[in-house]
């Protein structure tokens, strides 16, 4: 298949690259741009490990054509840490045991970021529902809920 020139804006930087039109965003991010934070877990958009923000909305990069994302602002997990430091949720994930093997964690970071930006004080039920598109096989989720609640508390305290 002939390659075409596409332009992707990822984590605030613009990349021009030649790519077959049928290539998936996840493959382009991981293989062409070296952004391996987004993971491939399922191939069929059922696990959420490859979630990225596209214009602020969580989308699954494993079932999305790279070419269709031109002109959009793409944020991967690599773009979440603020100025080289962990943000509140990333820190809380460590302290509360939100990740074990960590393979699903980048996807969760994207989902949680979106959740907290749109609903800074979610209820437990809202957290559970927001996270239900991301699968984790290690933690049983309980410690993630704790981490998210702790991150919200930390954010509130830093604002005071």
């Amino acid at each position, binding site marked *: 298949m002939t390659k075409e020139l596409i332009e992707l804006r990822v984590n605030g930087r613009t990349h021009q690259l030649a790519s077959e039109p049928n290539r998936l965003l996840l493959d382009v991010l991981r293989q062409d741009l070296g952004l391996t934070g987004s993971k491939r877990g*399922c191939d069929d958009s059922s696990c959420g490990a490859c979630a990225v923000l596209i214009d602020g909305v969580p989308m699954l990069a494993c079932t999305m054509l790279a070419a269709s994302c031109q002109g959009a602002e793409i944020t991967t997990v690599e773009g979440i840490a603020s100025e080289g430091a962990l943000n509140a949720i990333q820190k809380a994930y460590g302290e509360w045991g939100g990740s074990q093997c960590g393979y*699903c964690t980048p996807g969760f970071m994207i989902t949680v970021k979106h959740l907290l930006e749109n609903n800074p004080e979610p209820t437990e039920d809202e957290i559970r*529902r927001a996270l239900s598109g991301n699968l984790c096989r290690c933690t049983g989720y309980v410690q993630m809920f704790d981490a998210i609640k702790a991150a919200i508390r930390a954010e509130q305290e830093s604002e005071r």
Partner: protein
Amino acid sequence: MSDFATIGKPTAMIDSAQKATGQGKYTDDIALPGLLIGKILHSPHPHARIVRLDSSRAELLEGVVCVVTGKDAPNKYGILPVGHDETALAIDRVRYVGDNVACVVAIDEASAERALDLIDVEYELLPAYFDPEEAMKAERDLIHDSRPHNVEKEYHHVFGDPERGLSEADIVHEARYLANEVTHAAMEPHSTIAAFEIDSQTGQPGRLTVWSSTQVPYYLQHTLAAVLEMAMPQVRVIKPLVGGGFGGKSEVIPLEVIAAVAARKAKAPVKITYTREEVFWAHRGRPRTIVDLKIGAKRDGRISAVSARVVQDGGAYCSYGVVTILYSGALLGALYDIPHIRFDGYRVLTNKPACGAMRGHGTVNVRFALECALDEIAARLQLDPAELRRHNLLQPPCVTVNGLRVLSYGLPECMEMVVERSQWRQRRGKLASGRTEKRARGFGLACSHYVSGAANAIIRSDMPHSTVNIKVDRDGAVTVYTGAAEIGQGSSTITAQVVAEVLGCCLGRVRIVSGDSDVTPVDLGSYSSRVTFMSGNAAMRAAESILNQLLAAAARRMGCDPDELAIHDEIIFRRDEAHKASAGAWSMSFDQAIICAIENFGALSASGWYSPPAEARGGSYKGAGVGPSPAYSYSAQVAEVEVDEETGHVTVLNIWAAHDCGRALNPVAVEGQVIGSVWMGLGQALQEEMIWKDGLIMNPGLLGYASPSSAESPHVEAIIVESVDPEGPFGAKEAGEGSLAATIPAIANAIYDAVGVRLNEAPFTPERVLAALRAKDKTHRPGTEHDAATTPNRFREHGGALRISGKGQQRHESDAIHVQQAERGDQ
């Protein structure tokens, strides 16, 4: 709680930031210059002879570098010395749909996939066996010629006098239990990169380096050396971050060997990463298990004898099978004090992917049966299930009837904790208040246990089970070299904590170098929950040796005896405070002590190792090597469920899980392991099941094989019980597996409490619950019999896209007979 500085403190995993930022590298994240991609051609037939294999058309395709077949690596291997029955790629026969036939190596995935379709394979179909009890009847067309009746291994153990025990019983409970096949579904699909270096002297491919998502780097190195006929030092295994294992990566997986063989043939680095569907086809999960149980009990609830016949559907290769079946018998005896045990175990071959080790290896399905049976006995004797179990506790220190040594035993405290926290006495059987018209609530209790590492290694030898090296240099860093495989369970963090505690230094000073066979000493790997116990003990000994050198150097400088010194918070000081006033030389910083030590001894390094003591290695009967452990963890759980009597849907509302982990070295990690275990047990209890039809898996993906999501996960309260084991590092025992096995029977018992039906087949899907409810309404039979009505008879169509070559399911004529029989239900 204790006066430890680091141990027992909730500590973030040392690699948690790597994981949360996406910086951490898993195998598939790694790229090498000139990296080629390998894609495997799988068998479309469950059992067939390969008559002809022609890859010439594929080899001519643009972008294809080579095609690898069985001839390129004919040496047999297997994780157990008694089970070397696999080859990297099929030599002349395929034994399950998905078996590995050939591998295309190409410049990219698309070219490799195109080439798969161009490989011509001609098969001669053979009769296939899909049901273990059918497979055992076979006289011909055996799956392996060396295994009569397709029985991989059978064991018949008798401890005490079971017949007498049963005849002395006041009641005898008999029932059949069935647990269907489940899989690990670790989030990271298996992946391996293999690359050869060019040898400087010969100019030929020399050393092999393999990066792999493995729980057992040492066994991988071992197997690669054997299959590729290389010396072990010529093979280097590096284990990057591993995205979960749960046993699925605890043996050498075909793609690991295939990648190495492919890299040798292609003369370039090769990466093979399974698709999610391939992970399902190759899964090596927990086998479908049939348990026929007979238990005798006295009127007071004392168990007089247990007789168990266990049949495991092992799939087409041995894998861990011999160990799996032995575990299912050995651990019948180490939870309660059972005076007489009979165990008849059969590991049977079928034409399905091999089953292997999965979290709670071997014990989970038998524990499901036994704990449900205890509940039924309690009901018949009108005893409280918790009370009945209390009548059967071990009296440690003791050796069980089958030769397992138990030193620490927190089960009584675990039961006490869950009974209290769940308000068991007040609420069980009295949840009518929570009952609506069609929904009923119930409470169930069950217990479980697990080994803290196998006392006997897979490959019998006298080498240490774990070794840890520590180097302290002038930069002040404490570098710890460990071969223990961090797979997400937190072993690197625990090792760092143990070293920091012994040395009295801060955690930030400790650096862990792990999982690189060129640098790190041999460790047997991450399986059977052995790492904290064994690698922890090795790390402790290595750190103690470093500490002694530090104190000796400091003492010499401070003009005192090393015994007079103590270390805390990176300050070395004389214990006797009287010296505080004199000479000003009563303390020294950690950095100063390091410099003194290096000046005195040159390099500052030490090694520590651990092997389980001889008295913990079990009895002398055949098969006694599986089951013994230096220590056992214990767990008790109470589940609260709600059953919808209209739909059969079971919702788990709460689980209280108390786990005796000896001492919690890192409580966050222990709670995480316990909750994770409970949650995986919840999946097996309610919804997870590999659905097979004629050797085809019907749900090969994370959609069809649905593990519980965050929306349906109950509240799990993890309760840590610390029995402080005399031999564990700082008293620690296992925490990663033992809790799983209690969850399934606790839920089954809770369903009985709610609606009065016994679910003897797991998972308790809505259709099985509903069938059991209807059977009860119609016949009012006691729910103790295996009810065929609960067996699924409808299957979804195969919706996968596995790369298989051929015209789909061309079954052998005798298969059709099997299918008809199965459909008539007269098998």
